[in-house]
C-alpha cells in the first residue's frame, strides 16, 4: 500500500475532528452562560440540541452540499453542531456545579459579575467542560471518516479505498489510525485539564473519565 499519502490523510482527519470540537466549544461557552443566567432559555436550547443530535451525520452532510459544496466546510458544520449538542449541557452543568459558598465568597471579596464568571465560575467548571470536549473531539475525529462517502478526504480514504480493492491491511491501517488519533487527542485533553486545574488531586477516583450524559433529554416534556 502507498504510505506516502498517510501523513496528509492523518492531518486532514485531525483537522476535520479538532476544528469542529473547538468551534463547538467557542459557541457553547457563551450559549451555556446565557442558559444559566436566563433559566427559561435552557429548555428550548436542550430540545433543539436533542433533535439535532438525532440526525445521522451522513444525512446532515448531504443537506449542506447545495450550499457549501464538496468541501471541508460541509463536514465541519455538522460536526460542530454535534459538538455543540454535547458541550452545551456540560457547560451548564459545570457552571451550576459551582458551590454557592464559593460564589458568595467571590462576591464578598468584591468581584463583579463578569470577574466572578471569568476568574471563579469558569475555572471551577473546567473539568466538566473538558469531559464534554473529550467526547466531542473523539466523536468528531471518528465521524470525520464518514465524510469520505461524499468525497471529503480523511483517513476514511484508506477504508473506502481498501474496500474497493478488497485490501484488508489498508482498511485495518485506516481504522487503527483513526482510533489512535482519537485516543491521542483524548489524552492531550486530559493533560490540558490537569494544567488548567492544578488544585485537583492528581491520583484519585476523579482521575477516572467522567461519564457524560447524552444530550437527549426533553424532546417533548418529562425533564430528566
Amino acid at each position, binding site marked *: 500500500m502507498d504510505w506516502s499519502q498517510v501523513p496528509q490523510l492523518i492531518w486532514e482527519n485531525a483537522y476535520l475532528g479538532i476544528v469542529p470540537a473547538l468551534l463547538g466549544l467557542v459557541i457553547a461557552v457563551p450559549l451555556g452562560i446565557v442558559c444559566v443566567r436566563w433559566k427559561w432559555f435552557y429548555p428550548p436550547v436542550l430540545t433543539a440540541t*436533542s*433533535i439535532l*443530535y*438525532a*440526525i*445521522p*451525520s*451522513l*444525512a*446532515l452532510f*448531504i*443537506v*449542506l*452540499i*447545495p*450550499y457549501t459544496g464538496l468541501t471541508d466546510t460541509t463536514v465541519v458544520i455538522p460536526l460542530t453542531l454535534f459538538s455543540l449538542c454535547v458541550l452545551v449541557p456540560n457547560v451548564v452543568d459545570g457552571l451550576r456545579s459551582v458551590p454557592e459558598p464559593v460564589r458568595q465568597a467571590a462576591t464578598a471579596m468584591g468581584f463583579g459579575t463578569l470577574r466572578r464568571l471569568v476568574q471563579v465560575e469558569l475555572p471551577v467548571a473546567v473539568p466538566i467542560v473538558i469531559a464534554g470536549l*473529550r*467526547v466531542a473531539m*473523539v*466523536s468528531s*475525529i*471518528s*465521524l470525520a*471518516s*464518514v465524510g*469520505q*462517502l*461524499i468525497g471529503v478526504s480523511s*483517513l*476514511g480514504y484508506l*477504508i*473506502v479505498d*481498501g*474496500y474497493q480493492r*478488497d485490501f*484488508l491491511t489498508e*482498511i*485495518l491501517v*485506516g*481504522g487503527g489510525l*483513526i*482510533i489512535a488519533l*482519537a*485516543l491521542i487527542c*483524548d489524552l492531550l485533553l486530559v493533560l490540558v485539564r490537569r494544567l488548567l486545574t492544578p488544585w485537583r488531586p492528581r491520583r484519585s477516583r476523579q482521575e*477516572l*473519565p467522567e*461519564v*457524560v*450524559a*447524552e444530550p*437527549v*433529554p426533553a*424532546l*417533548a*416534556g*418529562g*425533564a*430528566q
Partner: protein
Amino acid sequence: MRFLSYAWDWLKEPAQWHGPGGIPIRILEQLYYTGLSLLIAALIAIPLGILIGHTGRGAALVVNLANAWRAIPTLGLLVLLAVTLGFSPLAWLIPLVVLGIPPILVNTYEGVAGVEPEFKDAARGMGMTSWQQVRKVEVPVAMPLIILGLRTGAIFVVATATIAAYIGLGGLGRYIIDGLATDNYGEVAGGAALVVLLALAVQVAFVGVRRLAVPAGLRQQARQT
C-alpha cells in the same frame, strides 16, 4: 432552501413509491435493521448493566467504555466485516449491535448504580430477596436512564444503518449511496430527507415509550426537579 426543493422534486415522483426499491419498502427495511439490532443490543446490554450496577463488579470497565467506544470509526467497522465475512447478515448486524450496546450499557449501569441506598435498605427491610430488590425497586427507579440509553442507542443504530448501505445493505441509505454513485443529487437529497424524518420519528416514539415504562411516582418526581 435548495436542499428541500431537490428532495421534494424527487419525493413527489410516483415512481419512487412503488416496487421493491420503493420508499415504503426501504423504510420498512430500515426499521427492521434498526429494530432487530437495537433489540439484540438491549438483550445484551440491559441485563449486563443491571448486573454490574447491582453488584458493583466491573464498574471501572463500564466507566472507561463510556467514552472510549466513540473512537470506533463506524465506516471502518462496517467495511472490515464486509470484507472478512462477505455477504452475510452478520456483516451488518455485528456493527449495528456493537455500536448500540455502549450507550444502553452505560446508562443502565448508571441508573441502577445510582439508586439511593435508602431505597435498597427499605426494600431489604421489607424482606425482599436480592432478586426482588432488583426487579421491584432498582430497575423501575433506573427506568428513565435505561430508556435514555435505548434512545441514544437508537440514534447510533439508525445512523450506522444508513451508512451500511455502502456495504450493500438496503434501507434508506441506498438512495444516498446510489444517488452519490450516479451523481443524482435529487435522489441523494430525497434519501437524506427521509433519513432525517425517520430518525426524528424514532425519537418521538421513545417519548411515548418513556410515558409507558416510567413508573408514575418517578414521573411526578421528574416534573418537580
